[in-house]
């Protein structure tokens, strides 16, 4: 998710950068535990912040191992760690996202390969969640970010706008769907955590070490 100059230039993300990305994403989750939990209390069961924290604590415990691996294996390993530690809905979904990315990506992907792998990962999330765009979930951030990546849009503003855009939606998937119309007017917690991850990743990749 860097900003490669052309579709066909392969990106090399070295071990130090991999480590910084992992740490930045984890830190973003740790810094927003309360916010995510509050969002989930409003329309879910109030654990999303804690779930993400628990998952990324496990990831951080093994950061050396993860960062040392080539990009695909690193992504798969982190995805598997999330699956095995988060629980809830977000664990299998983020885990599936990352594991699919890991399966689809070469070690040094081109931008086109990244776009395609990200698209496949989103499809895998949909399949796992029996869900689709517009249902007030993390997909409503992942989808627009995927489009922005493909079309060269700004990932950060896209992610924020997309998270904000979940507010007026009525939830069709996730615990919030039990609320029906009462889910309207609240941001989806998974959309927010997705946006936070995007910020953390772009921030590292755009900042020199």
């Amino acid at each position, binding site marked *: 998710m860097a900003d490669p100059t052309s579709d066909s230039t392969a990106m090399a993300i070295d071990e130090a950068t991999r480590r910084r990305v992992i740490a930045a994403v984890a830190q973003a989750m740790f810094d927003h535990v309360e916010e995510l*939990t509050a969002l989930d*209390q409003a329309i*879910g*069961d*109030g*654990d999303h912040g*804690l*779930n993400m924290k*628990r998952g990324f604590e496990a990831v951080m415990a093994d950061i050396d191992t993860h960062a040392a691996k080539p990009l695909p294996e690193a992504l798969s390993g982190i995805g598997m760690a999330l*699956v*095995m*530690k*988060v*629980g*809830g*809905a*977000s*664990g*299998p*979904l983020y*885990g599936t996202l990352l594991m699919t990315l890991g399966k689809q990506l070469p070690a040094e992907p081109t931008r086109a390969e990244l776009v395609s792998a990200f698209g496949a990962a989103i499809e895998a999330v949909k399949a*796992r*969640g*029996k869900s689709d765009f517009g*249902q007030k979930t993390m997909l409503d951030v992942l989808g627009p970010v995927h489009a922005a990546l493909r079309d060269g849009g700004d990932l950060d503003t896209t992610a924020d706008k997309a998270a904000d855009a979940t507010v007026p939606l009525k939830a*069709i*998937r*996730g*615990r919030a*769907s*039990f*609320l*029906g119309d*009462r889910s309207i007017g609240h941001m989806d917690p998974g959309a927010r955590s997705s946006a936070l991850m995007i910020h953390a990743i772009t921030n590292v990749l755009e900042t020199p070490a």
Partner: protein
Amino acid sequence: MKKFMNGPDTILAESLDGFVAAHDDIVAMGEDRKFVRRATLSPGKVALISGGGSGHEPLHAGFVGHGMLDAACPGQVFTSPTPDQMIAAADAVDGGAGVLFIVKNYEGDVMNFEMAAEMADREILTVIIDDDVAVETSTFSTGRRGVAGTMVVEKIVGAAAEEGRGLADLKALGDKVNAATRSMGVALSSCIVPAAGTPTFTLDDDEMEMGVGIHGEPGRRRVKLEPADAIAEEIVTAIAAEMGASGDALLLVNGFGGTPLMELYLMYHAARARLESRGFRVTRSLVGNFVTSLEMAGCSITVTGLDAETTALWDAPVQSAAFRQGM
């Protein structure tokens, strides 16, 4: 937040350790506290494994034992367990006849059990429980939630597994009992997730949450507190509307954790009269705190239509920490 705990990070482990120690004649702890299993396994029978977020005690670990579950996987509070837990549990208790997962219909639970079934290298079928009529399926594509009816399925299918029935047969039985089961709950107060520290929702002194879920998820509507008879009337009406023909029925009045037995029996009284006036015959009954939401005050009413087969299975012996009869 007032809880007996040493800290939110250790509450689950310390509680599980206490549970297993208190009932070591019935249960044993799985490696890394990934699951609780029967102390003594019966090789050759289909293994029943359930699990889900913690905070619903005695569900599920309290139902591990002869005549019910073989293992239960406790997740964090109100968070589905992770696939490694179900895989480890299956490895420990599968006696060669296959594994039946009993899963409450929450996306988190369904997905985690699904991933476990995909990753585990063994024969696994799954029964999904979705008994909560508070969720109107016409509007919610996620479908109904699984609530207190889960223990009814665990009991009846558990008894059938003890008889040596096969995996597909048990899956069909579980689906049948689930289809015959309807529940709805009401909360008078919220619960507090230990790690969150604040109430999941707040009700005014004269309000109740009608149709609440077992994680403090808001329900159908927030209304003024009403007399018990009016509450029972609304719930029984909602349940009866979703049942097929009236007939023999099991009536379960389940407390959410913070409501005293005195009130649960009063609700049983009110609900039973209303079921009977609609032509149901309440032939089996259960009243108590079985599928809870931490300290939430409130209760749910569950009705399961019974036939000769399921009645006999309900009556079969069971010896778990939280439900015991005939042994």
